[in-house]
């Protein structure tokens, strides 16, 4: 039975359980809903959950565990002599698996009988030929050991599958009966269902934690490795970023300071563009614009978030950079040497971030109760005064959230930085000079040509880790600010 079928069956049992649970609960009070503790649908849901969740959990665990177990058993049975030199047990196992699949395919195509596939031992060439006839991929030279292992593998997989089907279905049915037995008037079905729902909600929330753990884990070992090769002090306080090729005696200077500075500078410029434009757009959309303008302008602005960053990068390189040079360059103020600069990247990134601020803030501003606005208008406040002093403070947490999101995006962006701000790490106050960011360097060090166990490559992980910690600090600060100034309405 294929997986889809099994899944379908479990769900079908759950669905039937739902219907039965409902009716059973109802009939326990002779159809009087009011005597039930919970709505009939909760009794149904209780049965459905009890039959589906354990069964599906077992199914998932089984699906993960069975291949591991079967491979383990089969692979430990392969004699060492069957493993060619230079190969590995793992590779032989993949051959075994391929043979098993080939046998399956051959049986399906009719070039082998089922019993032949299960037991043929003598003639390797014949087996190979029959598999080839069925358009199966075969090992170049099939050995008896591999064939035996393949057959064993096939048999075990088949058994496992039957066992799994049986166990899962039995669990589903048992769960359904358990749920059905509970379906009587006094049973607190709603509470049970809600408890399960809450567990699901908690599981969803834990995913964020898991992701964080995963990220930290995937960074931390390589970071440690990096620090065994490169002095941490120089990394954290070095003011020069000049990686060179490890083949040449490791003369790299890997100071994070210029990169952090570039990140900070470019993000500030980007936010200086995105926050006012985004916030004012949000205010205009939610407070001034008519429904028609709003219905059109808001989704249009959101398109800005969906344009691939490479387009923004090219826009920075080809349009904004030269434009800025013509104003601030030699012919203008003389502050700018070339088109790639903090300003170029910052402005373009700011454009991309407009919808992050505008759309989210717009929703939050819109959610501020009208009575607050009325209160302010009633005192003779103008619309703008009302917005500035009543609406925005009430919407503050949401707006800060939106700005943080925009800032996060600015910190995480690469393409615009590479094309707009250049790749050179520099520590300068002049926003018309080229700089680069931590993220851009993470990407370039990770995808570069240097050898993968050199500090020049591993530094990418240390950069990632540092950035993670720095932004964590910023977020804690933001949370503190929000807590301090939040105005909770009603």
């Amino acid at each position, binding site marked *: 039975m294929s997986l889809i079928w099994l899944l379908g069956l479990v769900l079908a049992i759950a669905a039937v359980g739902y219907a039965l649970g409902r009716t059973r609960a109802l009939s326990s009070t002779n159809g009087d809903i009011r005597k039930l503790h919970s709505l009939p649908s909760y009794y149904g849901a209780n049965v459905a959950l009890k039959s589906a969740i354990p069964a599906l959990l077992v199914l998932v665990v089984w699906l993960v565990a069975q291949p591991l177990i079967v491979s383990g058993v089969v692979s430990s049975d392969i004699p060492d002599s069957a493993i060619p030199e230079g190969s590995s047990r793992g590779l032989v196992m993949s051959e075994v698996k391929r043979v098993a699949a080939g046998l399956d395919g051959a049986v399906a195509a009719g070039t082998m009988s089922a019993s032949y596939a299960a037991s043929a031992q003598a003639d390797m060439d014949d087996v190979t030929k029959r598999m080839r006839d069925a358009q199966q991929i075969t090992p170049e030279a099939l050995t008896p050991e591999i064939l035996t292992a393949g057959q064993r593998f096939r048999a075990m997989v088949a058994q496992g599958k039957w066992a799994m089907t049986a166990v899962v279905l039995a669990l589903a049915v048992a769960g359904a009966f358990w749920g059905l037995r509970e379906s009587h008037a006094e049973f607190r079905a709603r509470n049970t269902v809600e408890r399960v729902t809450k567990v699901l909600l908690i599981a*969803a929330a834990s995913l964020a934690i898991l992701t964080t753990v995963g990220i930290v884990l*995937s960074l931390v070992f390589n970071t440690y490795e990096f620090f065994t090769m490169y002095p941490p002090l120089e990394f954290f306080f070095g003011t020069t970023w000049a990686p060179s090729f490890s083949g040449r005696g490791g003369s790299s200077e890997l100071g994070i300071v210029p990169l952090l500075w570039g990140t900070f500078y470019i993000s500030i410029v980007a936010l200086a563009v995105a926050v006012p434009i985004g916030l004012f757009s949000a205010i205009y959309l939610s407070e001034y614009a008519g429904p028609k303008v709003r219905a059109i302008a808001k989704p249009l602005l959101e398109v800005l978030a969906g*344009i691939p960053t490479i387009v923004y990068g090219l826009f920075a390189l080809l*349009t904004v950079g030269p434009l800025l040079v013509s104003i601030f360059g030699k012919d203008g103020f003389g502050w700018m040497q070339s088109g790639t600069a903090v300003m170029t990247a910052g402005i373009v990134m700011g*454009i991309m971030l*407009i919808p992050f601020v505008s759309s*989210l803030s717009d929703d939050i501003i819109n959610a501020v109760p009208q009575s607050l606005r009325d209160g302010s208008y009633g005192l003779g406040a103008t619309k703008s005064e009302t917005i500035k002093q009543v609406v925005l403070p009430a919407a503050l947490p949401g707006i800060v959230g*939106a700005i943080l999101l925009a800032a996060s995006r600015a910190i*995480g962006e690469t393409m615009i930085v590479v094309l707009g701000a250049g790749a050179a790490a520099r520590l300068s106050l002049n926003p018309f000079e080229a700089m680069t960011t931590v993220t851009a360097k993470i990407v370039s060090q990770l995808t570069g040509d240097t050898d993968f166990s050199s500090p020049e490559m591993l530094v990418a992980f240390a950069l990632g880790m540092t950035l993670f910690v720095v932004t964590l600090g910023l977020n804690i600060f933001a949370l503190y600010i929000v807590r301090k100034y939040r105005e909770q309405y009603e």
Partner: protein
Amino acid sequence: MTDATNNPPRHKTSLHTVDARTKRRNASEARFKMYGMTAILIGLAFLAILAVSIIRAGTPAFTRTVFDMELTLTQAEFEAAEKQLMKTKAYQAVFIDQLSAKLTEQNVQVAFDGKAIDRLLGKIGGDLRAHYRANPGDLGKPVQFTLPASSRVDGYFNGKVTRDTLVDSRFLEVSDLDLVDALHEAGIIHSAFNWTFITAADSSVDNPGGAGIGASVVGSFFMMIVVLGLSLPIGVAASIYLEEFAPKNRFTDLIEVNIANLAAVPSIVFGILGLAVFIQFMHLPNSAPLVGGLVLTLMTLPTIIISTRAALKAVPPSIRDAALGVGASKMQAVFHHVLPLAMPGILTGTIIGLAQALGETAPLLLIGMVGFVAREYPDGLAEGFLNANSAMPAQIYTWAARADSAFYDKAWGGIIILLIFLLTMNIIAILLRRRFERRW
């Protein structure tokens, strides 16, 4: 209550004459409103500039120059070709021979040789071979073929290559353009709408005529299904728990900060995580949209959670009180009342999060979706999720890096398709959001 008289009422003023202070306030009001309008206009102007430049740069991708010719391949030629290592080259040679013969027969007044025709042709051997392998009955019979010309000929037709700027090279010589003109006159080559671009998969760097975005659209589609199917429910569920049920303590603060912080993790780091967890640990296949979708889900979750939480926070507590007061459970109050009211914010988060996910390349680099990947359409759902495929931004990114500038046009054309995809994807969310928007 006596001191009322100490404070004489302010001088009665006419409503029609605006006093100085009000004038100032009104001016500031007008300014404020103007800032808002300007902000929107700036945003829209940027959008317009970007849109115009995208469309201008991208339209050439939608036309191509094709050869229209009848070809007869004999059984002998077929067998000879199939014996070669580079079979496709042999097919191409047959085509060139027959075209030369035809030109001679038609008495074209331009000097040409096989090499010149080869320079004008795109890579057509693959198409020819595929055709005859699929239809052996066509051998020996004349068959009408429509095959792509080389990218330089394309450039000549859309004005990018001119006789003045062209430098003789092995790719094209100035004299070849006379041949192009002659062929054009003879009706053998002409421009046509480039369906291939919309339907085909990626092609190699020397074959711009065969390149299409279709397969990667499918890849993106499956990825977005994963992202939407996972990040929206998980994100909303997580937000509901954190905002409505979680006890307010240090630990939930930690989670809150953590989620905000996840949003700031560079997307390539999610790629590192995805490679480690999904491919190396869970043994999911390389380059699979399922893996891409999972990685992008992790990346999109913070966006959705942050916006959902903000939206949930904005729902007035009196609504919750009202529901609890009639005996609804907290769960019911949230799902029946609070969630619908928070819907606009949730949908906005989804729109923005998906837009971001759709355009992201960096994490795909690490899980193998960037490069020369999409070659076949998947048959069926399971393959769609599991077979190696590319995604639109990855495709665009690789095209943009290729040397032949014809791919540059394709990259922009791909961006147009991506934006159309994005708009289609968002339209439902946008309409839904409008339905849920209300003031209270």
